[in-house]
């Protein structure tokens, strides 16, 4: 077991999988010579060579489309979109090709491929280096969308994603990259895709979150326990699609109150689906209306610190909302 931050856990896992299986190739902008703008693939070019570590032209649709071709012909491509904000040109490939290759061929073709993308705010990324894209792709059957929030989950879920016979959109919250540290086993292990995780046990209410918001919830929950004696259970969604309704509902049934926290624009965000699921399937176990915290419905967060803070949730605002819900 070694303590690592999220970006190191991802680097080490990807490295280990490339050593273990020569079908794994990585491609994307600045990933070879530069080693990735976040250094996820640092040193890979020297070790694995240019047939497996590919600096692509600046064309996201092409990156995903080329990865599709590789996956169709025996490779296990792990494509990097430099920032999730830049995946939009690849939307056609993701929706028209990646998500439905298996479906449209009636199971004849599959696409064992991973698209990695750093997402989320809190790093002065402004409008085009801060976006949340999980709801956009969570809406598309055929693509699995994962949002690990800890070094352990990032490592185990990346390995699971590479081994998955279906395409996985692997979203890495860039604020967590160096902020969040934790123990990661030195031996290969997998964390299953499609399973949420109770990161903190509690009785009074359930907070449901992922990515950076998970850590805000954990911080707020610890504070409320200490200052108010309120016991908050925190569920880490981990996989946006397919959503683990069972774990979420079991927690909400236990506590009777649910707060969904997400960074994306509130309207039609992934939290909306979670809130709807709770309302549909656990209404008579609820002691309060389902509560939701999401970003404001403006196009994206601003560059100025004040504007970024006004967009993002933080431990204070989350704690306030938790307290309000606990006292309902």
């Amino acid at each position, binding site marked *: 077991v070694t303590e690592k931050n999220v970006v190191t856990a991802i680097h080490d896992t990807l490295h280990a999988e490339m050593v273990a299986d020569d079908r794994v190739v990585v491609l994307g902008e600045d990933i070879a010579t530069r080693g990735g703008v976040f250094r996820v693939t640092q040193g890979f070019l020297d070790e694995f060579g240019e047939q497996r570590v590919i600096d692509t032209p600046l064309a996201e*649709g092409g990156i995903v*489309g*080329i990865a*599709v071709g*590789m996956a169709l012909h025996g490779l296990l491509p792990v494509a990097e979109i430099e920032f999730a904000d830049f995946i939009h040109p690849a939307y056609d490939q993701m929706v028209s090709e990646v998500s439905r*290759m298996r479906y*449209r061929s009636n199971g004849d073709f599959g696409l064992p491929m991973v698209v990695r993308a750093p997402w989320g705010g809190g790093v002065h990324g402004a409008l085009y280096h801060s976006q949340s894209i999980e709801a956009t792709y969570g809406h598309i059957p055929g693509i699995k969308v994962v949002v690990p929030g800890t070094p352990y989950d990032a490592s185990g879920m990346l390995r699971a994603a590479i081994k998955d016979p279906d395409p996985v959109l692997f979203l890495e919250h860039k604020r967590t990259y160096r902020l969040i540290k934790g123990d990661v086993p030195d031996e290969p292990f997998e964390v299953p895709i499609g399973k949420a995780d109770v990161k903190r046990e509690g009785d009074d209410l359930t907070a449901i979150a992922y990515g950076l918001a998970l850590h805000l919830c954990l911080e707020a929950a610890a504070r409320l326990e200490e200052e108010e004696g309120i016991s908050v259970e925190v569920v880490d969604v981990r996989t946006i699609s397919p959503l683990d309704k069972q774990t979420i509902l079991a927690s909400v049934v236990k506590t009777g109150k649910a707060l969904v926290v997400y960074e994306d624009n509130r309207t039609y965000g992934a939290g909306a689906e979670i809130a709807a699921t709770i309302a549909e399937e656990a209404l008579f176990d609820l002691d309060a209306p389902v509560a939701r915290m999401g970003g404001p419905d403006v196009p994206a967060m601003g560059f100025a610190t004040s504007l970024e803070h006004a967009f993002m949730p933080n431990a204070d605002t989350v704690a306030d909302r938790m307290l309000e819900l606990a006292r309902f």
Partner: protein
Amino acid sequence: MYRTMVTARLIDEASFRLNRQGKAPFVVPVSGHEGCQVGTGWPLRPRQDIWVPYYRDVVIVLLAGMTPYEIFLGLFAKADDPSSGGRQMPSHWGSRRLGIISHSSPIATQVPHAAGIAWAARYRGEDAVVGCWFGEGATSEGGWHEGMNFAGIHKLPVVFVCENNRYAISVAQPLQMAIENVADRAPGYGFPGVVVDGNDVLACYAAMRTAVERARAGEGPTLIEAKTYRYFPHTSDDDDRSYRTREEVEAAKHDDSIARFAETLKDRGVMDAAAIDAVWAETKADVDGQIDQAWNAADPEPSSLERHVYFEGDGA
């Protein structure tokens, strides 16, 4: 070669007949393109090379090994349709067994796939060459540029074939691009572009053979532009009278690749008129015989709608 062209033409004629009878809701015709398809498909090796076609490529999939029966299963959207089990519109080809890559309706999305497959084939040490077909309208799409560019940078073993029939549904070539020849775009990607008469089977064959040899030798891609014409509307749902005169269409039919190739075969003493007539008669009987068989095949089970969204285990 000739028999394959005739097969495609007769499949087309039968498909439109079935469309008028209400048995085939949607038909994508090939007629007019048989010559450029048979010429550019012939140098590839079935089940060894990879076929990345688009929806007009009836001859291409016949060369890859799909049978008329299987094509009619697709036309009737039957459960055993090898391309999609009746999920996709007809002429959206695919068969892993035959190395025909499944494609969608959006245009040119398959071009980066062809480049990625070629990368994988070379990485795996195979000598496979990828053939990738599209119309001239596809060359306006960003995905076309991205696939061509990547293939050129890395000298990948792929041949791009543009079946230029001068119309993308209704939009004529002068409104699609400012240049006369699509092939002129190839030097911008660092590989040769070749213009051929798409109705001259042997010219198409020669251009493709050279391109395939070049690709297999590691010298990189070629863009072949085959100038041709489609005789029917874009699909059975299109009305081409709104954008093409009947005179133009009739004039184009005087340069039919099938008729031209028949003359070549007669001139060179390969086949006489009787043998050519026999090909038509035999093929018609063969194609028509496969229609009924396909028509009587089972429809997809409604409950199968939810299958194959994700992997269901080996052999599923």
